[in-house]
């Protein structure tokens, strides 16, 4: 790899020795010999297996639950319902004061998405747990469901989640996150061209090769050791402490070895109920998603819709940008209010635009709850923004890379959310990309700098 040292030569030390050198990964010897211990590479005598009874409906009231036949099934040790969970209604981000608590560990009176956990069955074998789960009788009254974000926001739409009371997350700024900078309508009035486009994405499953799971062992000292593949050890520990109303000192989480996560293992889903099962039975408990559960039940990346309206001048300057973003949280918040908020800060893109208006909505629908995945909140936005940039360049007959140089943010520029730009390197990246991709741009762009004014 060629390291071009001319960029930022006067603002960085040049005593870096590691970059460009290959160093062995410390975990690789374990991987290639099969010695790396993933959570499931453990076996404990007397270990029970947990299987979930899940909702077959997108939205339904639960009239009754009958677990009597399941409890009689050979090998079944314990059957858990909502009443067994000390603090059944939770939300992950309550740890950073992002409420309200809106999700049940086990469904209580209602299900809001197809696949929602209703009853947990603990048995001597996986097979017995599965067979017994099939014998749990749940009487549902099916309710109207809503799957489309814009339908969900219309008056009269079925309310997905009563803990919110409306089908959007209520920020302190109101029904959406808002960014207001300059006068966007004046910008559109002044623009030579205005282009409004709509972009949409589907949910994306991370599909890690190792499915989500944990093994919990009750210890002799009244503590519980939880071997888990969570990506969020302390989030999970603290949320489990709340859900089980158990001091954190009783919980010992062992993890860090994750067979693929990509953001799909940051929700607090398997650990609290498995620890509860271990507490109530006094036995080790294994709760691991089947491949089908991993694909259908675990949170995907949120579906998004992004509407971008830009005002652009013939000389290439973008003078106004208005963005309305919709993030489909599914039935519960999990990390989506945060994702939608990130989008609000991100939508102007790495460009300096004098007039910006952004609204981002976190919307509830009767779909699988979505959550984190690699750059959630901004990845789909970047797709939409950069496609939009190409369309704008085409509209004014300009080279798409030169068009980006004209609008690139530089040190000292004020961003729409009132953070001054510092440490920008977009221009230098594009200069290098221009060379590497053999996509030449005019010399004046190759002479630009992110941090030297007047270039």
């Amino acid at each position, binding site marked *: 790899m060629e390291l071009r040292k001319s960029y930022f030569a006067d603002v960085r030390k040049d005593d870096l020795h590691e970059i460009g050198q290959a160093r062995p*990964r410390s975990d*690789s010897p374990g991987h*290639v010999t*099969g010695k790396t211990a993933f959570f*499931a590479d453990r*076996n404990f005598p007397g270990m029970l297996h947990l299987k979930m009874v899940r909702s077959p409906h997108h939205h339904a009231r639960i009239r009754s639950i009958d677990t009597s036949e399941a409890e009689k099934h050979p090998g079944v040790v314990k059957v858990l319902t909502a009443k067994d969970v000390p603090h059944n209604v939770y939300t992950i981000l309550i740890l950073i004061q992002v409420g309200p608590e809106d999700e049940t560990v086990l469904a209580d009176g209602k299900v809001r998405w197809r696949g929602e956990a209703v009853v947990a069955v603990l048995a001597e074998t996986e097979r017995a747990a599965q067979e017994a789960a099939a014998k749990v009788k749940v009487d549902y009254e099916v309710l109207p469901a809503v799957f489309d974000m814009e339908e969900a926001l219309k008056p009269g739409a079925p309310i997905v989640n009563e803990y919110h009371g409306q089908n959007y997350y209520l920020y302190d700024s109101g029904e959406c996150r808002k960014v207001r900078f300059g006068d966007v309508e004046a910008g559109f009035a002044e623009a030579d061209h205005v282009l409004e486009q709509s972009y949409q994405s589907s949910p994306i499953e991370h599909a890690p090769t*190792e499915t989500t799971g944990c093994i919990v062992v009750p210890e002799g000292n009244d503590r519980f050791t939880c071997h888990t593949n969570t990506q969020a050890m302390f989030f999970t520990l603290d949320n489990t402490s709340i859900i089980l109303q158990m001091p954190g000192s009783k919980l010992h989480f062992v993890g860090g070895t994750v*067979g693929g996560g990509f953001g799909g293992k940051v929700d607090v889903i398997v650990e609290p109920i498995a620890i509860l099962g271990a507490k109530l039975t006094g036995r080790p408990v294994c709760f691991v998603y089947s*491949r089908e559960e991993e694909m259908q039940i675990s949170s995907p990346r949120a579906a998004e819709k992004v509407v971008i309206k830009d005002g652009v001048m013939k000389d290439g300057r973008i003078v106004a940008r208005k963005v309305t973003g919709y993030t489909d949280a599914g039935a519960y918040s999990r990390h989506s209010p945060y994702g939608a908020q990130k989008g609000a800060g991100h939508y102007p893109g790495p460009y300096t635009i004098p007039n910006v208006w952004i609204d981002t909505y976190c919307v509830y629908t009767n779909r699988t709850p979505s959550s984190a995945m690699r750059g959630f909140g901004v990845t789909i936005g970047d797709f939409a923004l950069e496609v939009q940039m190409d369309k704008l360049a085409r509209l004014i007959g300009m080279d798409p890379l030169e068009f980006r140089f004209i609008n690139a943010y530089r040190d000292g520029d004020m961003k729409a959310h009132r953070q001054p730009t510092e440490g920008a390197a977009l221009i230098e990246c594009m200069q290098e990309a221009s060379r590497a991709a053999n996509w030449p741009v005019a010399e004046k762009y190759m002479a630009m700098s992110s941090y030297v004014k007047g270039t």
Partner: protein
Amino acid sequence: MAKVPVQFTLNGSEKAEFIDSGTTLLNALRDKIGDTSPKGGCHQGTCGACSVIIDGELRLSCLTLAETCNGAAITTTSGLAEGGVLHPLQRAFLDAFATQCGFCTPGMIMAAKVLLDHTPNPSRDEVVEALSGNICRCTGYEPIIQAVLTAARANSQNAA
């Protein structure tokens, strides 16, 4: 449930267990014998993480009943290093950064070993074909393909 006796060699050692009829080889190896190098990624024969070598052939241990393996010679990734020295494939995976999370790695190495046992100097296309039953979600496959080609070159140089 009546137990069924099974007996086979695992990485050269004699193993004998009583298992429930219907137990997969994957579960027998992991839960009974304690070799956790084959991984359960899907338990339905689609991901390749459970790949092992049975009598020289690549097999999915999650779809193989343990009781059908009586008298077989089974190889897993945990048995490849000899005397603490890594197998050339293990060395190549390490050097080529062909592992990230590591969950698919033991299965990948099994698939690659069967390829090189049958085809010591494979083309890139043959490597891709041989690994096509093994899913990796981290690397994008390219470092894995390079590792297998590197191991093949190392083998042919040693043979020459």
